């Protein structure tokens, strides 16, 4: 007897979803375990760990900051207990957000061009938030196994990686301005073996914003193509050329974007030149 083959019908996605969910409910009813005590035990243990971690962090914060000298402004392992009161007229403070906003903070540093500022401030974060909210509508496949969701897994891994990198770079970013760099001078003196005559120039170098564009002995940042000055003395430019350059950079390096430091006055320019010509590199 011939068997008539019926054409295969593909049920709609909604039907499959509903059937799958009905199957799940049935399975849980038949083979599941009661939430209390099985799952709740796990939850309770984890919650205990969380509370213990929070209390532990609070205790470490207190005892490493206040403990040693009974002074809450001492940094300790987890930072100082309290910071200076708000001073809206400061010219030496380096603002930073709370650590979980570091990725947004660094995003603002990536979008360096003035025309793109709104992208970094509201554009990119808004788009990312919309993608996050819309995830269930972008991915409608029923498949849940990670091994069979390559796009999702790659996208997830990239997201975690980029958030991690942005957060880390935000944490380590420093702008190399006067209030921060002045603390590096003792290290420079030691690492570069600077003679006493070079110390006033070193301090001027640290506070005049040079490190905003130049790197020196591990301090500062590279901007606008400014060269590293750790061993600038090995170029044997001589004091006179250094002073001339500081007074008018374009006269020594045509087209240089470096601003003029003539306003410092000849005496200070001379001190800076001595410092630069004593910088033979770190040992």
């Amino acid at each position: 007897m011939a068997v008539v083959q019926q054409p295969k019908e593909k049920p709609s996605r909604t039907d499959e979803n509903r059937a799958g969910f009905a199957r799940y409910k049935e399975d849980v009813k038949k083979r599941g375990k009661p939430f209390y005590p099985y799952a709740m035990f796990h939850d309770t243990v984890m919650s205990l760990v969380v509370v213990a971690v929070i209390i532990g962090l609070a205790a470490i914060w207190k005892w490493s900051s206040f403990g040693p000298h009974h002074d809450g402004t001492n940094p300790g392992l987890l930072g100082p207990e309290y910071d200076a009161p708000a001073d809206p007229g400061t010219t030496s403070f380096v603002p930073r957000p709370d650590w979980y906003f570091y990725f947004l903070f660094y995003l603002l540093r990536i979008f360096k061009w003035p025309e793109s500022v709104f992208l970094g401030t509201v554009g990119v974060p808004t788009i990312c938030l919309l993608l996050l909210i819309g995830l269930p509508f972008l991915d409608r496949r029923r498949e849940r196994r990670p091994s069979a969701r390559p796009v999702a897994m790659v996208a997830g891994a990239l997201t975690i990686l980029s958030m991690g990198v942005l957060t880390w770079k935000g944490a380590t970013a420093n702008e190399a301005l006067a209030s921060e760099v002045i603390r590096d001078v003792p290290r420079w003196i030691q690492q570069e073996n600077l003679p006493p005559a070079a110390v006033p120039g070193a301090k001027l170098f640290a506070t005049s914003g040079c490190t905003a564009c130049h790197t020196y002995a591990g301090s500062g940042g590279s901007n606008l193509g400014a060269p590293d000055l750790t061993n600038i003395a090995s170029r044997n430019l001589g004091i006179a050329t250094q002073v001339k350059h500081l007074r008018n950079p374009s006269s020594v390096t045509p087209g240089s974007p470096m601003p003029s430091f003539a306003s410092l006055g000849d005496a200070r320019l001379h001190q800076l030149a001595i410092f630069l010509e004593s910088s033979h590199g770190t040992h």
Partner: protein
Amino acid sequence: MATTYKRKPTKAEIRREQMEAAVMYPIDWLEERSGLVGGVKYFLFRNVPSDINWMQTLGSAALTAFLVQAITGVILAMYYTPSVQTDPATGQPVAWESIRHITDDVTMGWLVRGMHKWGASVFIILMFLHMGRVFLFGAYKYPRELNWIVGVLILVMGLMEGFTGYLLPWDQTAYWASVVGINLNGTAPFLGPWLAQFLRGGQEIGGETLTRFYSIHMLLIPGAIIGLITLHLYLVIRLGVTSPPWSKEAAGMEPAEDGHAPLRPGLTRPVTRNGNGIAAQGEPGGQK
């Protein structure tokens, strides 16, 4: 046939029955008048898949962190003053001074403040980890899409809570982080400048900014978060917890057909119908 007589209950058994009745009496009283006991019992004794793993405790861990924040926050609010006026006695802003007072003078004040400060970071980390776990398990798919959206809203609210709370100690880090955060809002096209001015409470950051951030931090966002968390938990209880997708005994797997090995959950295979047009067991339209 000999009749079996029920053995007379012993004194210990009688006492036990009396004690059980005494304990059950108030519970039954409550249940008859409110139905709440039944709800709690449903929550506690409902079934969950037998193969759930430790990664799935991150959600309740985040809830615990939130509760820690709520409780420590309430206690801190009893000692904190959101005023930027300079205290003549100490020469410092009153808000800053109240935080110093909590940290140094109030008994265990340092502990409550420390727990609140670090609890915020722990809460945010746990939310991100929980979100990652849900993404890994594919637990944002049908029928849990709404729950995912609610969860993202909770995350955003949590970050806003951290942002508004950061200003309250009124120290340098607090002040300048808030200046930047408000100005970021100000760069949004068209409404940005107005939003920034509303957040600031004026043209410059001042006393109004602190008080409104305090109101947002204490009242507006906690209310929203509590509402959203309630909805989130309701959906979890209603829709159930997923099995790990790689589990061999995952709940909701498609049944074996024609001697093939059981399929893993979520795998789509065209549903075949036999010659009579009757769907196989477990398929849409088929018999259970």
